[in-house]
């Protein structure tokens, strides 16, 4: 499997690796995937309650190089966006940016799921009147 330079670059220098306090109301956590499938992503966001801007993001990923790169890229992209803007990020954008081959598209799907799950978790903690409490993708219980 030949990797694109961008995948290799993210793999060698993953951005925003780490953990946030998942119990904090300002933090939304998305844990997607399953160990038996060979990839698990945890993406966390810290959101400013006033501006709804994602001020920080962290991730950890168990998975192949493309899964690591996809989630690393996702943390870069969500930072500085409002939660609504972040929901606009599509897996196809990730595929394009990282030049993922067809067999690795599921890695980008998982990254999109992780963003949605993290935002869903944050919204659940910060129920806003007139807005659904959770995003389409549920958060894995842990």
């Amino acid at each position: 499997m030949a990797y694109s330079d961008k995948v290799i670059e993210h793999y060698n220098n993953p951005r925003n690796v780490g953990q946030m306090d998942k119990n904090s109301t300002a933090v939304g956590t998305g844990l997607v995937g399953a160990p038996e499938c060979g990839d698990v992503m945890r993406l966390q966001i810290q959101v400013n309650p006033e501006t709804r801007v994602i001020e920080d993001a962290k991730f950890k990923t168990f998975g192949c190089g493309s899964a690591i790169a996809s989630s690393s890229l996702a943390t870069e992209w969500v930072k500085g966006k409002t939660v609504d803007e972040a929901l606009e990020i599509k897996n196809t954008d990730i595929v394009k940016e990282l030049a993922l081959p067809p067999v690795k598209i599921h890695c980008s799907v998982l990254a999109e799921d992780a963003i949605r799950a993290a935002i869903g978790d944050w919204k659940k903690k910060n129920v806003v009147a007139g807005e659904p409490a959770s995003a389409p993708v549920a958060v894995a219980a842990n």
Partner: protein
Amino acid sequence: MSTVLSEPKLPAGVKLPIYMDNHATTAMDPRVLEAMIPFFSNKFGNAASRNHSFGWEAEQAVDLAREQIAKLIGATAKEIIFTSGATESNNLAIKGIGEMYRERGNHIITQVTEHKAVLDTCKRMEKQGYRVTYLPVNADGLIEMEDLKRAIDDKTILVTIMAANNEIGVIQPVAEIGKLCHERGILFHTDAVQAVGKIPVDVNAMNIDVLSLTAHKIYGPKGVGALYVRRRNPRVQIAAQMDGGGHERGMRSGTLNVPGIVGLGKACEIARLEMAEETEKLLAMRDRLRKKLESNLDFIHVNGSMEHHLPGNLNMSFIHVEGESLLMGINDIAVSSGSACTSATLEPSYVLKALGLGDDVAHSSIRFGLGRFNTPAEVDYVADKVVDVVRKLRELSPLYEMAKEGIDLTKVQWQAH
């Protein structure tokens, strides 16, 4: 491709990339190549040409190779049938016996960790009206003799069980299987591709009736293999699967690949003469690798019985690290992984799953295949590099973090996708 900014200083005896995937194939031994070269140029005769010196020269070379191969496995030269490799040998053995002994019965017994060349051949036999029993293996990767005894019935014509496994290096109880089959009057075929030349194999002492082997796993050329077919007690008959000039006692038509056969013969001779010494060297290197990895990393798992094991094999799972990402980090080392991401089917290794390991453990597995040309310095380099990359990837792994916090990962509700 990424560019290397500065060449790090390498210890003596290490040259990158390091090849440690000797179950996939092996480098040709220079002595083998040397023996083959004349048969690509001036000694080009057809071994089946009976009426001139070109043919005699080729035939003589082929006869010598037959002797060399036979000697390695305790057979006689006439019992060696040349093929294009082990896949053909396995196909010829199973289909040829199935066809020849169809009137006696239609039941074949094999086991679940066989190579696809055996499993898929058996599946085809099922479509053609044969019954196939696939024996399970225990957590060590070994079949249980009791299971085999129970599986045999009055329609059983063939037991085909590998000598040593290509992924986990586990050696099946070949002599016991042979003895049982012999007592019950059932033919015993073994795919001995990984075992021949690596551990002692004796077709008489082990009651093997038919045996597949190939050159490129024992430092010989690709594209040539052999099938041992017993001639006495019992005389095994195999229906040819290709029609043609009736070469190889009518079992395998086609002009002989003389240079390849010469290479296979030479490779067998070297293996026979050097096996004892080589085994000691391989065992020392493998144990060194294992110890280094085990003393520097937690959450690692050795796959397959270490008691019944090929000297050059080590299959380990680095739990909470996905195999393909590990391979990516050690890209100057050639090894294999049981991870789904590295397979064409996107399924994790069926061999590891057969041991009862979870998919997650299979995804995390690496197969190290040590061979004749590896050095202790390479082993040290590989161990250090693997430790380094596993640690780095575990820093990235949510599973490792959760496991360290004491979370039972089997209790988490994952979202399979």
